[in-house]
């Protein structure tokens, strides 16, 4: 089975902090994605990566950056956390096929 592991299930951070969300997949997938999930809005794509060191902006990249130094790891960075970034963050990966495998999610609260 494919395993996508997010480093934290719950995080509480202060406004202005730099926050790192880590995601690791164990199936040599080329594509990795970061989404945020908010009630009534579904999942919105923040960034995705289709290869090491490659990244593309999704629909809501403002306030976020990403890093993919190794194929299995895709990090989401909140440069200066704000309260409107309180959300559930979901990482996903896929082989060169459209269906994705998701991690358990990280519920981030910014206070």
């Amino acid at each position, binding site marked *: 089975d494919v395993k996508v592991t997010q480093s934290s299930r719950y995080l509480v951070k202060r406004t202005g902090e730099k926050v790192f969300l880590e995601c690791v997949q164990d199936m040599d997938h080329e*594509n990795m994605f970061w989404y945020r999930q908010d009630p009534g809005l579904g*999942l919105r*794509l923040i960034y995705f990566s*289709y290869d090491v060191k490659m990244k593309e902006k999704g629909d809501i990249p403002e306030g976020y950056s990403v890093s993919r130094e190794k194929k299995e790891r895709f990090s989401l960075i909140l440069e200066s956390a704000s309260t409107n970034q309180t959300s559930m963050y979901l990482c996903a990966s896929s082989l060169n096929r*459209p269906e994705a495998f*998701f991690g358990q999610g990280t519920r981030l609260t910014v206070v």
Partner: protein
Amino acid sequence: AQSVTQLDSQVPVFEEAPVELRCNYSSSVSVYLFWYVQYPNQGLQLLLKYLSGSTLVKGINGFEAEFNKSQTSFHLRKPSVHISDTAEYFCAVTGNTGGFKTIFGAGTRLFVKA
């Protein structure tokens, strides 16, 4: 560009009753279609997918969906639901032009009552 509309935000239903969760999409290119399920405090799990071929697709846990190209719909159905089906369900669409960028609907919360 693609978009997805899930027509119901919440669907309450009694156990053993049938259920349909509705999904419409729009796209200027051919698409792949998906339903994902999210149980409380978990990530998303693929329920079923339409890539090509038969328009009636069967998934896990007794769910099925029918792709209707003329109506641009991909409704999810189950003939008899269980308490354990209580979850949030997301319809999703991916354009088949490469890149596999997926657009998700807002979600439908299915609540199965005893």
